[in-house]
């Protein structure tokens, strides 16, 4: 608790620097990752994330120091080479893209680990701290490193906002962008460069192993909350920044702990919450919607059967028991009772002792469902030439989805027909 207070009072300028740095890195990865995801290049992001490791090691081996700009250049070069190789393999051989990606990913990561082990063996590993590139270390972001990576992160966000509408268009419809005469090749090159740079900077906080998750997860989580690219990008950035903040906190309280797994765990929890609880796209909201639809269908079916029974007995408002209803059409007993309750509350039926009867409103609604059912049966047999004994099943579903506009269109098209294919009267 005490550390939490100290941390969030931001009294130590070091803490402020680390926090701002970590948030910038994760937010910029999330912003670029939004377009990586929308362009369906998530796997490619993963390959690049692993392919930068040999570059970092080589840059260090060749220069003997770990100036951040040198490491960025090294990472950028091998990151790019991996992309070129993936494209080349896919174009020139029978190997499919996903296989090529897996191939490049594992080979380059293997080479990276090999080089890293070599550096450690030669004894100057302690001084380099290169192994923090594997799992990230937000707290190491101080001084020169912070400046360089902070500037790159700001640059990334700036580039995405400058080219926002073009990036959006090539993600949605690249052919159309080309037809408009936009420089599609250059824009693709730009997006790829941004992806590589985002990976290179992001690994400072998250590490090579989990970087792909950092790139894609915020965007995937944000997608649940909005249907607009701009909002999606902003939400992803905020989510990314929040996980970066959490990572910085962990790094502050437990300096030996790698921050990457923590950051990715936080962003994954956010993604899980989005997956379950987001309105309209989340699965809970989706299943509630499903349930509502099920209820509606059952209610309409009940009103329809009540109307139909009334038609048979020529007494539309006669009282029916639950058993009579079940004999007419099978409804499981419990859901039937609750559906009757709902219909009563909506004023479509009334109850007296054991019997249920339609109200005037209920009869009108039941009549409409019967009408739609018979209209659709007639439509199927007239226009689709489907045999009369095959049209019932289909009409059972369609009767619940036809809108008033379609209803009018059907009536007009068939000129207010009197009888359905089974010679039952169509009620108006």
């Amino acid at each position, binding site marked *: 608790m005490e550390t939490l207070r100290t941390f969030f009072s931001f009294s130590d300028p070091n803490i402020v620097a680390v926090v701002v740095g970590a948030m910038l890195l994760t937010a910029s990865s999330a912003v670029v990752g939004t377009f990586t995801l929308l362009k*369906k290049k998530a796997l490619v992001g993963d390959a690049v994330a692993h392919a930068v490791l040999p570059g970092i090691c080589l840059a260090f081996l060749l220069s003997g120091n770990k100036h951040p700009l040198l490491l960025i250049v090294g990472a950028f070069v091998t990151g790019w080479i991996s992309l070129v190789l993936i494209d080349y393999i896919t174009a020139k051989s029978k190997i499919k893209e996903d296989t090529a990606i897996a191939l490049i990913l594992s080979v380059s990561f293997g080479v990276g680990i090999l080089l890293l082990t070599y550096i450690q063996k030669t004894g100057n590993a302690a001084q380099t701290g290169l192994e923090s590139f594997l799992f990230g270390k937000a707290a190491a972001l101080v001084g020169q490193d912070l400046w360089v990576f902070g500037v790159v992160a700001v640059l990334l966000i700036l580039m995405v906002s400058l080219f926002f*509408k073009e990036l959006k268009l090539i993600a949605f419809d690249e*052919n159309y962008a080309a*037809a*408009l*005469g936009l420089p599609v090749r250059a824009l693709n090159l730009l997006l790829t460069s941004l992806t590589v740079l985002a990976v290179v900077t992001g690994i400072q906080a998250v590490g090579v192993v989990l970087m792909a998750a950092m790139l894609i997860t915020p965007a995937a989580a944000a997608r649940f909350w909005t249907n*607009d690219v701009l909002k999606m990008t902003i939400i992803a950035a905020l989510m990314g920044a929040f996980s970066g903040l959490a990572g910085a906190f962990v790094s502050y309280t437990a300096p030996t702990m790698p921050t990457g797994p923590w950051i990715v765990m936080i962003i994954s929890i956010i993604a899980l919450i989005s997956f379950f609880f987001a309105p309209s796209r989340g699965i809970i909201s989706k299943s509630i919607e499903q349930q509502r639809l099920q209820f509606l269908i059952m209610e309409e079916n009940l009103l329809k059967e009540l109307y139909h029974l009334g038609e048979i007995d020529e007494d539309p408002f006669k009282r029916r028991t639950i058993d009579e209803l079940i004999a007419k059409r099978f409804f499981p007993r419990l859901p039937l009772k609750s559906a009757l309750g709902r219909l009563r509350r909506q004023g479509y039926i009334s109850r007296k002792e054991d019997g249920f009867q339609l109200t005037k409103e209920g009869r009108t609604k039941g009549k409409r469902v019967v009408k739609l059912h018979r209209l659709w049966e007639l439509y199927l047999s007239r226009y689709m030439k489907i045999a009369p004994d095959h049209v019932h099943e289909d009409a059972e579903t369609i009767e619940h989805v036809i809108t008033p506009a379609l209803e009018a269109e059907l009536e007009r098209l068939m000129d207010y027909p009197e009888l359905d294919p089974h010679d039952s009267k169509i009620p108006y």
Partner: protein
Amino acid sequence: MVRRSTQNAISMKIEAKEVAVEFHDLTVSYDKKPVLWNIDMTLPKGKLIGIIGPNGAGKSTLIKSAMGLLPLSSGYVRMFDQALNDIRQQVSYVPQRETVDWDFPTSVLDVVLMGRYSKLGLFKRVRKADKEMAMACLKKVGMEAFTKRQISQLSGGQQQRVFLARALAQDADLYFMDEPFAGVDAATESAILDVLRELTTQGKTVIVVHHDLQSAAAFFDWIVLLNMRLVAVGPIEEVFTNHLLQEAYGGKLTVLSEVSELIKKRRIPSRERY
């Protein structure tokens, strides 16, 4: 007037100043395998022109190569007697509906606004005037009530109309459309047709890929019959003959496809360079 050309295809001579598009000895290949052979024709201005042919005939390939989206193995395409790059602003393209992911997080209005991007240029944001223009185009196709709708919530016919509105927003003189009538209901079909007709009465040229023979006869002024090669091109009454339709639709051109396969296997360039 109608004559047999050297490619054994019926084609019409039109005066140079009346030409909207000229395909000159065009051959297009995918991965070395030619799918269009020696297309040589001129299409007139101000007409509603249907490109007709069976599945896999190369209709989409033809208009993609006209829009500069594919490398050409040989030949060239000119529009209004100019190269495409010089008059791109005057040419508009409607891709096949299935080529994009309709679950993309964007709204109807945003998609139509994309039609303004080339006029806007890099870095510029859409202005009020662009929005008004996009709204007017949506109104033309009867979609003004769906402006804010997410595109995945549209029916197939509505998606098709949004694509059409986007092309209209370019305010071009020449339109290439890939199957704008595919998967639409009767009402949408006639709504789209009205819009296309209106364009041609304004003197604009509309070239439409279409695969339904029956409706083609009623829709178009001119017809291009295609099946890997040009079968015939001309006014509808001259091209829509039993004999020519048979030629276009009468089975796959087995010899041509087989030769294409061979070329691919042996990696022979479809056109010799020297």
